[in-house]
């Protein structure tokens, strides 16, 4: 292990990590919003839309992100839709993540017994008040473990972005290995940087899970 090599590579890795973080977290933020909307459409069976959303979810849960990105980045320009690589990364991650988040959130919604809705309505609450004050808070807190798992999954998935020539961590590592063949240093730095990105999420995630499960429900 050569420390000088590592030091000289450090700025490149930092830059790459920032790109991974930027695209990753933007994609995650959008996928939470998209997943939330899709889950509500599915759960409350909004006419027409819930079928379209169903097809979207199945399509993106049953295909790999890499193929989705290839299609978005190399395929779509051929029919006149050109998307910048970074936007493409965020879009791809959002579409993939939206489908996963939607399913997680929907099973959170489904875990709440219908009689909870009835009990809120029997107190004179309107449908919207019931959803807002009674259903959503419970559904969100019961979906948190799945959300955390999805976030970790999506951050890991960002490792395919180099395929659409985004200079992320994988791209940088592969590039440097090819140029100078300092393989061990490059790989070690790759591992460390991914640990730096993912370990905090994993730790914070498990703390939040515990908090919500115990404090929120008073166990």
């Amino acid at each position, binding site marked *: 292990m050569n420390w000088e090599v590592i030091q000289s590579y450090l700025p490149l890795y930092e830059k790459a990590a920032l790109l991974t973080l930027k695209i990753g977290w933007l994609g995650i933020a959008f996928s939470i919003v998209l997943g939330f909307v899709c889950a509500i459409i599915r759960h409350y069976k909004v006419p027409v839309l819930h079928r379209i959303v169903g097809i979207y979810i199945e399509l993106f849960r049953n*295909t790999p992100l890499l193929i989705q990105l290839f299609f978005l980045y190399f395929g779509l320009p051929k029919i006149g839709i050109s998307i910048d690589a970074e936007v493409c990364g965020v879009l791809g991650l959002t579409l993939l993540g939206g489908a996963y988040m939607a399913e997680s959130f929907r099973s959170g919604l489904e875990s709440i017994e219908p009689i909870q809705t009835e009990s809120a309505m029997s107190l004179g609450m309107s449908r919207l008040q019931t959803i807002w004050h009674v259903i959503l808070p419970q559904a969100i807190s019961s979906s948190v473990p799945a959300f955390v798992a999805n976030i970790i999954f999506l951050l890991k998935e960002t490792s395919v972005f180099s395929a659409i020539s985004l200079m992320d961590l994988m791209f940088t590592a592969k590039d440097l290995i090819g140029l100078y063949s300092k393989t061990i240093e490059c790989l070690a730095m790759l591992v460390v940087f991914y*640990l730096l990105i993912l370990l905090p999420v994993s730790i914070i995630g498990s703390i939040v899970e515990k908090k919500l499960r115990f404090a929120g429900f008073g166990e």
Partner: protein
Amino acid sequence: MPDLGLDVLFKGINMQRLLGGLWVSLRISLIAIAISIFLGLVVGWLMTRKNIVIKAVTRVYLEIVRIMPQMVLLFIVFFGTTRLFGWNIDAELSSVIVFSFWGVAEMSDLVRSALISIPKHQYESAYALGMSEGQTYLSVIIPQTFRRLIPLAINLITRMIKTTSLVMMIGVVEVLKVGQQIIEANRKASPNAAFGVYLTVFVLYFIVCWPISMFSKRLEKKWS
């Protein structure tokens, strides 16, 4: 109607080549799945034992797999081992190693949680009926464990298949790579091939994974 570049698929043996590429991915996932299921059952059962060393080792193993992107693991095995040990592991074997490493972790975690999800009084009521430990496992615990396990294990198969798309990044010539080659070769004759070919690859993956997901969902509903 814009040129969707689908014509290229019907030229010569292009479609056959794509399917051949798909088979390469599927072959890698099938081998890795077989290894994962077999070793996963063993490791998962080991994890329910109350041995501190086993617990610590499996915990670290699971955490590594949970956090590290499979791409990083692929790079380590494919580029790293050559450098460190002078082994020359080819791309396909590297893929099988990495996906098995990942799959065993996932599978063993499923086995472990299925085993501990069986309530204690299920064991107790079997013992109360005078059954031996072996009989209890064979006719009470294992059937219940399997009902929880099988849908999740099937789901793991689709995840494995989807993840094998990564092997293209270390140079395995699978469906996506074949697609690229076809697009390159027909650059002049059909400039829009990228749309048609990548759409086809997308659909091919869907055709393979979707029925398996549906099957797993149905089993889960039926058995829950």
